[in-house]
């Protein structure tokens, strides 16, 4: 138990924890520390203390009632958050459950959720979270620290094979959890980690009373499948499951025990029901939104946006272009050592791409402005480095912006011994330069970008072969067999901070696509990146971290193991009548504040 003085001093040393300042801007903020302390010390009746423990939202209050319909491309496959890895399931689950610390999608800063306050030790390794008291799950069962412990036990259980496990494992060691009291939990990190509170975002707390039996029997992975009756599912989210119809829709209803209240003291959420309808294809999504059958649309492509834009005023919805996203599209090269069974052609093509000059020439020859104009109708940004422009806090603005220059490309190539003859490029040994780019079948925009790159490289005399393939086959080649030369890939950082992307930048990382899981860095620049990333991981001051990460971006831009292309904008839409609609650049873009959305004219929305 830490003494109160230490609590206060440490809490305010770390500026991310200064949540009392976040009471502005219509965000949900935790009740300031001091008031809570006074409230507990004074002999208040139990119900008042319980009311104080709920989260007060400063958003303008809305009107209760109505139903929201959203059409999604994928259907949920399970209701078990621990094992869910597909988008359809996660889309529904995030409204059934709640986390301890939540990143506010508007401000991009962590806020108290189920944990009303927390403290950190000086070395950043020990966190003590104070949970809200008197909260109940959607079935009325009380919530306490045992549920938190149980959740982490399930995540780290070998038998569950949960993908969440690796997100909470630092340097190969899991985060340890200890119970300090009925409403107090301690987390011990194996190594110090900057902004570790962001780790808790979307780590949802499970009900021990519902799942303990399954966990003990080793069947936790099979628990809460889609055929589970709704009464068996309990969570702390704003909604609870009402019904699921296979292949058609999932309906959620208001959770009467939700722990957030608005400024007028009304319990959130405002909406009575939310229905997620399975649309099947993006065209279907667009059609149903235009038809008025759905109320929000999440991430349309630029071309569909243009179609929807035309009917905005007539059809009663509005579209928003939120600007640059957190997503990057890149062309990644295979720079790893190839297995013995690789064909000679692949080895030859890889040998071309190992020349830094060729990679730089390719990057100089790509017409990013045309890609933005043609594929994304201007609703994207050309990239100079691997960090998307939507990430204002971490973008290295000093990187030179990418301008297409065939002259510079030719200079780079001739300086490195490449020759042009009869409109074809040859390497020093006289072999014609050509290579293949893998593209996934399921992303038409990436295929279009690849076609433009193919055309861009023709003046350089480089022949590019586009190979479309289904997604799992590409995954197999990229991660296991390493049988590829170049591939179109993309990253979407769920969080602005560089820490979740460690697997990309570290040479030992699994997502270090050009040469993953190295035992030791294969090149001096990769060794330098390793060092820089490790240092920023433990550094607690933002300014210093930014400096280190800026240098990482520079090195990436010089060596180009993957060529950054463009970052598409986030394009969303919703009916005009929807109140409190404040879409965000972070996922989930439109519905992150679902508990605060409401219909302005009562009876509108909901059929």
């Amino acid at each position, binding site marked *: 138990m830490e003494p109160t003085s230490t609590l206060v001093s440490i809490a305010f040393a770390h500026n991310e924890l200064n949540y009392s300042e976040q009471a502005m801007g219509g965000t949900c903020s935790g009740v300031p520390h001091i008031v809570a302390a006074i409230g507990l010390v004074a002999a208040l009746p139990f119900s008042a203390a319980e009311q104080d423990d709920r989260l007060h939202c400063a958003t303008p209050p809305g009107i209760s009632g109505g139903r929201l319909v959203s059409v999604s491309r994928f259907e949920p496959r399970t209701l078990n958050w621990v094992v869910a890895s597909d988008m359809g399931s996660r889309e529904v689950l995030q409204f059934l459950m709640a986390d301890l610390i939540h990143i506010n999608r508007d401000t991009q800063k962590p806020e108290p959720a189920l944990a009303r306050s927390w403290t950190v030790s000086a070395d950043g390794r020990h966190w003590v979270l104070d949970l809200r008291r008197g909260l109940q799950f959607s079935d009325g069962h009380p919530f306490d620290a045992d549920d938190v412990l149980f959740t982490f036990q399930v995540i780290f259980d070998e038998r569950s094979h949960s993908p969440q496990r690796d997100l909470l494992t630092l340097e190969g060691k899991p985060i340890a959890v200890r119970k300090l009291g009925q409403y107090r939990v301690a987390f011990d990190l194996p190594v110090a980690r900057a902004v570790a509170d962001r780790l808790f975002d979307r780590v949802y707390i499970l009900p021990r009373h519902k799942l303990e039996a399954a966990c003990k029997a080793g069947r936790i992975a099979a628990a809460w499948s889609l055929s589970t009756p709704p009464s068996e599912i309990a969570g702390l989210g704003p909604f609870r499951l009402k019904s699921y119809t296979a292949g058609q829709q999932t309906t959620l209803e208001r959770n009467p025990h939700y722990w957030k209240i608005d400024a007028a003291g009304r319990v959130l959420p405002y909406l009575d029901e939310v229905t997620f309808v399975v649309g099947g294809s993006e065209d279907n999504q667009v059609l149903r939104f235009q038809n008025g059958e759905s109320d929000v649309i999440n991430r349309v492509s630029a071309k569909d946006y243009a179609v929807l834009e035309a009917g905005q005023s007539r059809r009663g919805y509005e579209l928003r272009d939120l600007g640059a996203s957190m997503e990057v599209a890149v062309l990644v090269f295979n720079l790893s050592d190839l297995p013995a069974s690789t064909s000679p052609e692949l080895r030859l093509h890889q040998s071309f791409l190992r020349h830094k000059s060729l990679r730089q020439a390719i990057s100089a020859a790509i017409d990013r402005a045309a890609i933005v104009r043609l594929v994304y109708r201007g609703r994207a940004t050309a990239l100079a480095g691997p960090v998307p422009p939507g990430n204002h806090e971490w973008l290295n603005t000093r990187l030179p912006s990418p301008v297409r220059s065939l002259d510079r490309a030719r200079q780079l190539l001739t300086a490195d011994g490449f020759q042009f003859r009869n409109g074809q490029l040859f390497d020093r040994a006289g072999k014609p330069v050509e290579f293949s780019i893998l593209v996934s079948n399921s992303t038409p925009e990436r295929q279009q970008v690849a076609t433009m790159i193919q055309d861009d490289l023709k003046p350089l005399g480089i022949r590019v072969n586009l*190979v479309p393939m289904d997604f799992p086959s590409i995954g197999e080649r990229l991660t296991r067999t390493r049988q590829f030369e170049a591939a179109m890939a993309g990253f979407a950082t769920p969080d602005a901070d560089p820490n979740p992307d460690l697997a990309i930048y570290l040479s030992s990382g699994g997502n270090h696509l050009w040469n993953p899981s190295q035992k030791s860095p294969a090149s001096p620049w990769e060794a330098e990146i390793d060092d820089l990333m490790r240092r920023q991981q433990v550094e607690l001051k933002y300014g210093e971290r930014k400096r280190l990460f800026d240098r990482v971006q520079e090195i990436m831009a010089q060596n180009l193991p993957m060529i950054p292309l463009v970052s598409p904008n986030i394009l969303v839409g919703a009916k005009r009548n929807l109140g409190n609609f404040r879409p965000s650049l972070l996922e989930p873009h439109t519905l992150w504040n679902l508990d605060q959305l409401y219909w302005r004219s009562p009876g509108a929305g909901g059929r």
Partner: protein
Amino acid sequence: MTRRVRIAAGVLFALHAVVLLAGFFAPYDYDEQHRDYPYAPPTRVRMFDPQGRFHLRPFVYGSVQKLPSGEYREDHSRIYPVRFFPDGRLFGVADPGVLFLCGTDGFGRDVFSRVLYGGRISILSGLLATLIALTLGTIAGTLAGFYGGWMDRVLMRTGELFLALPWLYLLLGIRAMLPLHIQPGQAFALVVVVIGTMGWVRPARLIRGMTLTARESAYVLAARGFGASSVYVIRRHILPMTWSVILTQATILIPQFIRAEVTLSFLGLGIAEPMPSWGNMLAEARQYFAIVSHSWMLAPGFALIPLLLGYLVLADSLLAAGASDANQDS
């Protein structure tokens, strides 16, 4: 041959010829990108200028794109006459004029030219697959019908197996397995060979039927009477009788396989960029925004339908002729 059949044959011949000679009939290359004219509507070819005078030589106006709406308007101050036989092609306009008879796609590539070049892939895949299916089907059907017995049973059961297999899964697997340096044309040819191989069953059944009948005919009995070998009998007597069935089947299968190419392209198994085929052009055109805003991209459909119609009319007439032959025989 009736007049209708002659019209159909003529249309088919013309379409095939134009497609084969796409390099001559198309004003642009199939992969030539005009990045200043994405999704341009079809260029209007005119004979009357703004003053109302008639020009013997047709001409087009310059085209300018209004941004950011993306719409195009004609610039009447620039006139480009249509030239005939410019460097190896039938017609075209001088730079910087553009002549997009069916508009352009998202990269500014001329849809009309791509329809012509794309017809090669679609028609060729139909022909190749039909050739394979008919060859295999004839062999299987003749053997099954002629020898009967266990060979017949084995072949027919194997046929049922082929009909029910999940060919989509097989194709995805094959496509993913191919080495990367294989050209798009070769990869697609392999896909076509596979679907042709899958399609031997129906023709085999029909030919088996014909062979069964032919086996009992007077000629064959006589030939066997004077000691002719099986191979001789098959070659000299059975095959000619099945010839009409084979031909009819060809006119039915070719459109079927051309449609299969369209479906394959919809599922992502078509030929890779930048090669056009009617299938992959239609796959791009069938997206909602394309149908609503750029409907000229459905042009391949308008080439596809007359082609298939022509084959159907041919098939009909051959069937009718075959039926009347059969009636005459009996």
